[in-house]
């Protein structure tokens, strides 16, 4: 499995922190902040992993994930969803949409990196 991640998040400082962490572990990191065009960006970039925020301008993470899972090319794409919405209903919605891992803010760097490593391992 390659090490190309697409980070879809609109909080600029979270982007910088996660980008730094992933880059340090050898990941090629691309970022995207607009929910409306996120699916197109995934199709174009074809990353090995997507870190996806739940709440995005233009389109929310659940809808993005649902669209991705409807595409045979991305049914098995590892997707780590980050959210400030920790309610069980949100988790259930994410799981129904096909999320690979669901993580609530505020998360630790260790949690993020462990999740990324786990998802990579599962995908191999």
């Amino acid at each position, binding site marked *: 499995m390659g090490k190309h991640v697409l980070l879809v998040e609109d909080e600029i*400082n979270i982007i910088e922190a996660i980008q730094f962490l992933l880059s340090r572990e050898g990941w090629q990191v691309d970022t995207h902040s607009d*929910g409306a065009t996120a699916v197109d960006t995934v199709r174009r970039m074809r990353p090995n992993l997507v870190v996806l925020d739940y709440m995005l301008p233009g389109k929310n993470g659940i809808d993005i994930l649902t669209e991705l899972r409807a595409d045979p090319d991305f049914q098995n794409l590892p997707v780590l969803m980050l959210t400030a919405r920790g309610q069980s209903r949100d988790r259930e919605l994410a799981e129904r949409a096909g999320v690979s891992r669901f993580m609530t803010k505020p998360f630790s*760097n260790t949690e993020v990196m462990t999740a990324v490593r786990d998802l990579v391992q599962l995908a191999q």
Partner: protein
Amino acid sequence: MARDALTGTRIRERRAMGGLKQSDLARQIGISASYLNLIEHNRRRIGGKLLLDIAAALSVEPTVLSEGAEAALIASLQEAAQRARLPDVESERAEEFAGRFPGWADALAAAHRKIADLERTVETLSDRLAHDPELAASVHEVLSTAASIRSTASILAEDKTITDDWRDRFHANIDADSRRLADSSKALVGFLDTETGEAAPSGSPQEEVAQFLEAHDYGFAALEDGSDTPDHIVAEAPQLVSAQSRHLARTVLERVVADSAQVPMKALKSALAEAGPDVIALANRFSVTVPHMMRRLAAVPGLDAGLVVADRAGSLLFRKDLAGFTIPRHGAACPLWPLFQVMGQAGQVIRTRVQMPTRDGAVFDCFAAAEPAGPIVLNAPPLLEATMLVLPVPDAPVDAGVAVQDIGPACRICPRGGCPGRREPSILSDGFGGF
């Protein structure tokens, strides 16, 4: 055991509480100690004059002995027993318990009521947390900012090889985020304290002014009749903690003075009674602008009118809340509000019937108009200020030949799907689908 069958028990408890010996009480009321003993062990029925004599000797009302603890106390104890999942046989002994240990019974019932009150408070706050859009937006802001700070701070603490450029950038990020977190936390705490009925400092000068105006119910009769001054009212207002809020409040009050000079409240009420809330007719009658009249109408006690004033950038400069018509506390309001439609046409007055996406589909009539604000400068576009008066339309018919515009409070807290005016997703679950 029947309630009246415990009269003897109550006599015994009351006598013991008063430190009176059984033989002394028997002597006082003229019966033998052995007979009083039988009464106290509920082996002899008691009533009539003897009960009155015992009550007098114990300095209590006869009903305290004959009826025992109040029904409410018994009910509270039984509820407490059910909550504790005690068997029925224990629950049925609540009255006996109350009769034998009145002090403990009161304490237990009070604790049970307190628990119930606290649970209701928790339930209310939980409900707000789950459904209140303002609160949900605040929580989201706090958590997102906390996530950013936590992640960035961990990098700085753990990575000793980080370059100077990255370190500087992360320090700047933490600085910015910590300020943002401080502001959003204050706003959140202020919101929660307001909900629980406690006075608390607000998160921003605008919030302080809003609390100040709410405390005065948006009316300043003493200011209008000249018996008080803006400076004095501002100085005495506990809600106005910051210098900025005092400045903003003074500006609002000075406008009240100016507005009321041309449209006195008494005359306005009289005209309102004749013509109804026709803003144009009323403005013409008093020879003032329509926004001026809207501000005065919003101050009429009992009219139940909301008011929003915004500048051309969309910032809300003034807000008077109205039940069912949510005006966002932070950020931009719904772009479909008539308030924003008049920005490009100063002088034009529009009236639009609107519906908010509330459970009961509340309907309102909105009057909106814009006018220049500030001094007129040659060859420079005027600064504009738009004003919108919001009047509730109770029991509005669904289809009465009047077009109703669907609007919302603000995109972030609006559940409407498929809205052409949406500029960001809603944090309300129903609002995700249509985006």
